């Protein structure tokens, strides 16, 4: 049986099989809401023609218009990047060519984690290691099952493991756990605490009893995230002086890991990097996409979203969308909408699994006339010579 890969959540499961009927794909039912919704939306999408200001236009006219907008922009922002490796590559090449900035839909979380990483580093595990070796999973974050519907089935509840048959103990801490984690860290380090929490004794007992406790961190509310992640980084570091422990950051999906890693090998830095001076400059605050749009520093928004149907943010700047063919606009349509192939459905591609260790191949499920964003970007780059 040939298996397909699902690009619609951060886990990028590759064990789905799509029912076929008379060579036509039927309504998918994978037992996973995210996969069901993602594949259904892409398979049923019919838009194949671009829109200029909401009106259907030829590809020739649309590409001419795109070139004109890009050529006229002083500081284009290439944003969204809810796509796969080929989408991300296209966006970063455009940023280099047209002298713009690059960010991701989940740029705030990526930048926050990167800041912590760049200041101290960390000790991390992979999804497979947690599945096979963790005997205590401390699950942190908001409703992880909604973001990763198969998290438990695939990673946390398997009883057939490399060196045993007992699934890990799972300790769910939600997202309001900073005090608990801080106290646990202090107590494990033998430091006094002003006020203890009853739960700390239990958690310390669990950690002390475990051979490989792993702190699995799902997305967190922004106001709590930084301190929680920093505390976990420190806790893991302390534990490893004599024992073993690790972090696992799961991200939010929508190509976040792929965008960050592929941008890094292209420009050296990753997202929130500006190419306006002709060389890459990363600034995790100043190059935030939303800030560039609200301040007016960016004068053109180029939005990449081949995996999600949501429209781009409503902004004052003219907007070019390389978008999912089922994307619709209730408010003002963008200056230009270019429907592109959905990776893993209309074309082949690659997407990183949440831990970044594995780049999962995405097959094409059906033939599609939709172009991929990479080919469109190549065309725009070749049709508009670089200014400097």
């Amino acid at each position, binding site marked *: 049986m040939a298996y397909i890969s699902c690009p619609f959540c951060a886990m990028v499961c590759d064990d789905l099989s799509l029912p076929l009927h008379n060579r036509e794909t039927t309504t998918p039912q994978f037992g996973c809401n995210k996969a069901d919704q993602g594949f259904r939306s892409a398979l049923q999408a019919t838009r194949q023609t671009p829109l200029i200001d909401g009106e259907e236009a030829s590809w020739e006219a649309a590409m001419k218009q795109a070139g004109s907008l890009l050529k006229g922009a002083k500081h284009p922002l290439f944003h969204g990047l809810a796509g796969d490796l080929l989408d991300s590559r296209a966006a970063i090449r455009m940023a280099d060519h047209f002298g713009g900035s690059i960010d991701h839909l989940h740029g705030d979380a990526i930048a926050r984690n990167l800041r912590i990483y760049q200041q101290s580093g960390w000790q991390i595990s*992979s999804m497979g290691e947690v599945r096979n070796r963790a005997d205590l999973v401390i699950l942190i974050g908001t409703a992880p099952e909604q973001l990763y519907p198969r998290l438990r089935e695939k990673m946390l509840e398997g009883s057939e493991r490399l060196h045993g048959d007992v699934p890990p103990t799972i300790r769910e801490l939600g997202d309001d756990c900073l005090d608990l984690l801080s106290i646990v860290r202090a107590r494990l380090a033998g430091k006094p605490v002003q006020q203890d929490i009853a739960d700390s004794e239990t958690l310390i007992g669990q950690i002390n009893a475990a051979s*490989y406790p792993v702190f699995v961190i799902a997305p967190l509310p922004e106001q709590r995230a930084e301190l929680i992640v920093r505390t976990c980084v420190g806790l893991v570091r302390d534990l490893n002086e004599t024992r073993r422990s690790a972090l696992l950051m799961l991200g939010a999906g929508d190509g976040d890991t792929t965008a960050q890693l592929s941008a890094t090998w292209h420009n050296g830095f990753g997202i929130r990097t500006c190419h306006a001076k002709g060389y890459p400059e990363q600034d995790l605050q100043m190059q935030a996409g939303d800030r560039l749009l609200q301040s007016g520093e960016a004068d053109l928004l180029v939005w990449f979203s081949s995996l999600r149907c949501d429209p781009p943010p409503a902004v004052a700047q003219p907007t070019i969308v390389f978008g999912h063919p089922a994307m619709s606009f209730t408010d003002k349509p963008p200056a230009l909408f270019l429907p592109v192939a959905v990776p893993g459905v209309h074309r082949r591609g690659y997407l*990183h699994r949440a831990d970044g260790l*594995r780049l999962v191949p995405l097959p094409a499920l059906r033939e599609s006339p939709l172009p991929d964003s990479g080919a469109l970007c190549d065309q725009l780059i070749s049709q508009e010579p670089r200014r400097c």
Partner: protein
Amino acid sequence: MLIRLKGAQIYDPVNELNGAPGDVWVRDGYICAAPENPAEADRTIDLEGRILMAGAIDIHSHIAGGNVNNARLLLPEQHLAEQARRPRFPFSGAKWSGSDTGYRYAEMGFTTVVEPAVLPINAHQAHAELADIPIIDTAGLAIVGNDDFLLRMLRDGAEQARINDYIAWTLHATQCLGVKVINAGGATAFKFNERQLNLDDEVPMYGMTSRAILNAVQRAVVQLGIAHPVHVHCNNLGIPGNVNTALDTIKAADGLPMHLAHVQFYGYGDEGDSGFSSGARALADAVMANPNITVDIGQVLFGQTVTISGDIMRQFDARHIANPKKWVVWEGEDGGGGIVPFRYRAKNYVNALQWAIGLELFLLIDDPWRVFFTTDHPNGAPFTAYPELFKLLMDRQYRNQWLESINAKSADISLLRHLEREYDLNEIAIMTRAAPAKLLGLKDRGHLSVGAIADIAVYRPQEDKAAMFGNAELVLKNGVPVVENGRVIQVIQGKTHAVAPEFDRGIESAISTYFDRYHLMKMDNYKLDPQHLLETVGSELVFH
């Protein structure tokens, strides 16, 4: 297109040309015989007085994959851009990007580079990165020796033939040119909280030694007929006294081909007041006495760099000497590793001695066919420091100048002051061209025979060998001029080289079942599909 490269001094050890002036002819990407009528040339390039060699080949440079990319992310301060990019050369202002890697290697006359540490689960990303490195050809070596499937086979007493099938399958799955063993069993032992593993220590849970793993992989490589010998990162890297581990590993090879990588990092004795001394003499003697052994050096050069390795034990152990003080350690399926930034300082006793040990090894191993030119980029130094290393090898006076300025104690105890040898151009051509091509089984390069790929580097002779090798005057890749006067003038797409040894496909049934039991992925999706790679990231694979 017929190109005549006219009148250069040719250094081509395979054809025993040692500086004799002559012409090299190139047609459609390959070196061809001179036509009867020289006027047939579509283009003649006058190279009188210049030095011409085949394009250089680097057998061990970390240029792609998770560790490399995460090191970029960890250390933005190390590669801040200084110059705007040049028009028509994407990302040419982006230091330490994939593009920069291709441009800088080409500008030094390198045309093929091997990434020596592709963790199989990360192979897709490694190949995607390799595909984004312009101009040069690339290849990867797949890491084995900490993979649970292999360790189970060994524990269960599998026949060598089945081990061979598995190693061949791994090469197919990862599309690599050979295999590498990093501290065999070490990453696995670390997962059981062991912090050191000697060659004869047992790996927890598996009941076999590091030596047994290494031997099994080595035999598989030999029996499968893979040209490149098993590429070995020894146990106990970086530890004083570890020259004994290297010597034991050479003995363990038992006469079969084995390549020891970055031997500088295990050329350490433990004598003297500081408990750290040079083991170069003993190691060099052992290499010279065992013709089955090849080595690359992993030369240390002074300055800021970052160490990256799949040797998680070593990297974890080194966390306290990180400079700047930040480090990353990671564990993943069948491996692990770490990223530890480091600054090698000339006045530091240990660092200065590391620098000297590397050079001692280069100069004591008197067979350029078996000692290879590397800095283990970026571990000993970035590959961009290669010109400095050429100068150190070719200019004794320059070495002696350095000996005056490094840590005095290190300079005093080093043999370096007494080593008069200077590499000549023929030896450089062997070490960086002819020998690596032979070691990797890349028969179509590393020499200038008719039919070879026209990868050619031309240098302007200079007293200052760093200046000479730092900027090639002309470089042809596949017969296309890509560098002139030390600058890239044209970007072409390189290819990636791999091997595809025969094996019994029956093993896939067991591997597939194993994946279904223990992995989060399907075996078929774990394997790289050359057609998929070509259609998506543009990676063209060439099989040997």
